[in-house]
């Protein structure tokens, strides 16, 4: 009975991040809706205000059609991967017990982070599937550094993505640079987060599960059929839980694609430093799945520096609009901000360094 003590704290204290009790989920959602929903509504109202002539109305409905097509495109493309990740997560919940997992994970922090970076080779997931799996592993008491390293590295360090990058760029510096930098950054960020306590990073619901010794429901059940049914149901819960973030993320990405002209961004981006930031910003905005972003990057090779391409291919899979929203299902908001900024800073540093050391 530790929870009532926590949630008895008043919600309205000045900085909710400092107190150990974060807002309940419902309030968190309300706040998220207000934060994202209001600006979207404002933009829509602004657009609606301009609709006076039939041509303008035509223009807006056409834009809206484009928005819907792109939104559904991202969702339909990502849903299978999220589903597979959720099913893996559901089965981990029911069939993997905490003690065995503890034995398998290295206790030494450096080794733990290193193990996380390589885990993608066993669970080939892209940036949508990796989130529910990571959350489940945290619930099972996974070390923080291993989870973060897995979350950041797995979208690149997995057979499918390595193969698609190879198909696009061949055995060259871009492929090795992408793999090497992803490993390095995931490892580094994992180590940095190891310095913080889990209860400063994770959502309270997750922490509760993490410290809660019995695994949920599974111990009551005997029989394989019932266990599989429970695993599937957990998978369903996980899928819906994460799909909220996926939907909001895809809508934002689609809105950006519909409203912000790409060439405006691309026109800015020349030079060894600026080009890196432009392509990394583009990677964040586009939210393209890591399994195919290499083909997209090919289109930029003629106009952008090598460092910028590597930055695009390293940063994009780790953090983009939809994945950073999905992180909100695992981490506290402040952690998510660090989880965006740290990979951004490190990727930018290495990518700019690449331009100066390796050449453009």
């Amino acid at each position: 009975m530790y929870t009532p003590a926590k949630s008895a704290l008043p919600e309205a204290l000045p900085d909710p991040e400092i107190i150990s009790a974060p807002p309940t989920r419902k309030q968190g959602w309300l706040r998220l809706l207000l934060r994202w929903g209001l600006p979207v509504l404002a933009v829509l109202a602004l657009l609606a205000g301009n609709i006076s002539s039939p041509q303008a109305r035509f223009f807006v409905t056409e834009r809206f059609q484009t928005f819907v097509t792109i939104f559904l495109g991202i969702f339909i493309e990502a849903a299978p991967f999220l589903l597979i990740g959720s099913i893996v997560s559901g089965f981990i919940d029911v069939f993997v017990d905490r003690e065995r997992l503890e034995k398998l994970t290295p206790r030494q922090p450096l080794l733990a982070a290193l193990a996380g970076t390589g885990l993608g080779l066993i669970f080939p997931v892209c940036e949508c599937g990796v989130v529910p799996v990571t959350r489940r592993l945290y619930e099972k008491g996974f070390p923080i550094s291993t989870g973060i390293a897995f979350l950041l590295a797995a979208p690149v360090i997995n057979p499918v993505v390595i193969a698609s990058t190879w198909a696009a760029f061949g055995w060259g510096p871009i492929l090795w640079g992408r793999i090497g930098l992803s490993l390095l950054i995931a490892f580094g960020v994992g180590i940095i987060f190891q310095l913080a306590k889990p209860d400063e990073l994770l959502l309270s619901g997750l922490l509760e599960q993490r410290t809660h010794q019995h695994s949920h429901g599974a111990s009551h059940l005997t029989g394989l059929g019932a266990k599989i049914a429970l695993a599937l149901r957990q998978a369903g819960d996980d899928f819906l839980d994460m799909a909220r973030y996926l939907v909001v993320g895809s809508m934002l990405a689609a809105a950006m694609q519909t409203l912000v002209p790409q060439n405006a961004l691309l026109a800015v981006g020349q030079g060894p430093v600026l080009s890196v930031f432009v392509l990394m910003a583009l990677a964040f905005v586009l939210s393209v799945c890591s399994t195919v972003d290499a083909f997209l990057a090919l289109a930029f090779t003629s106009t952008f520096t090598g460092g910028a391409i590597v930055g695009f291919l390293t940063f994009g899979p780790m953090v983009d609009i939809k994945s950073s929203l999905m992180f909100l299902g695992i981490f506290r908001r402040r952690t998510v901000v660090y989880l965006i900024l740290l990979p951004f800073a490190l990727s930018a540093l290495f990518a700019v360094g690449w331009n100066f050391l390796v050449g453009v």
Partner: protein
Amino acid sequence: MLANLRVQTSLKALLLLGLGFFLFTRLTGGTLYFYISERFGWLTVVAALGLFLLGISYRTGRRNEEAEAVAGCEHDHADGDAGHDHAIGWGGLLIVALPILFGLLIPPRPLGSTALAAREMNVSSVPSALPAAVQGATAKADTERSVLDWVLDFQASGTDGENFAGRSADVMGFVHREADDPADAFWLTRYVVGCCVVDAMPVGLRVVWPDAPALEADSWVRVEGQLAENVSAAAPWLEAQSIVVVPPPNQPYLYP
């Protein structure tokens, strides 16, 4: 509490089935490839089946849930449901329902010329670095080639246009006009899609045709004609001999 839980559980099952049904309508309606690349079609089949499976699993699971809630395991579930895994809230359920609402209420349409406003039609933006695609393109007979094949070939062979003058082409695409196009010209456009519409890149052949003003933007046409050297621009253009309006294809995009 229990009643609320039961309603939520039913709604979640319904939502999973609904999402599965939405994917199913795209598969049976032949509009799936308005959104994603052909290559990933099978994944959508997997996802639809998986979502149905998960939705059905709630039926068997509900009994366990109720048994558990009644028996009350040591940790207190009734505690405002704060952060409890099973409650995603009404707002959350509504958000997840958005793809179904958008998908079923708004008639599906592929990307058209409006989306070009946020993109640049540029020969050099095509993934020409893919040697296999270029080889595949140049190996095809002239009249078999798509807009993408021609554009890749233009780019691979240096775009002075001399090699292309007089060759005949038979291509399909939608009509798009740039602001500075003369009245008798338009761009016969296709989108090249690697993964889904997010990475769609437009490629176009410039077509000259005296009756061009009669063609509506976004209408799909089949153009037969001959390539001609373009004095002002790098890539050759297509002088049309016949233009037929055709219904939009089920696979509106080209794949590299």
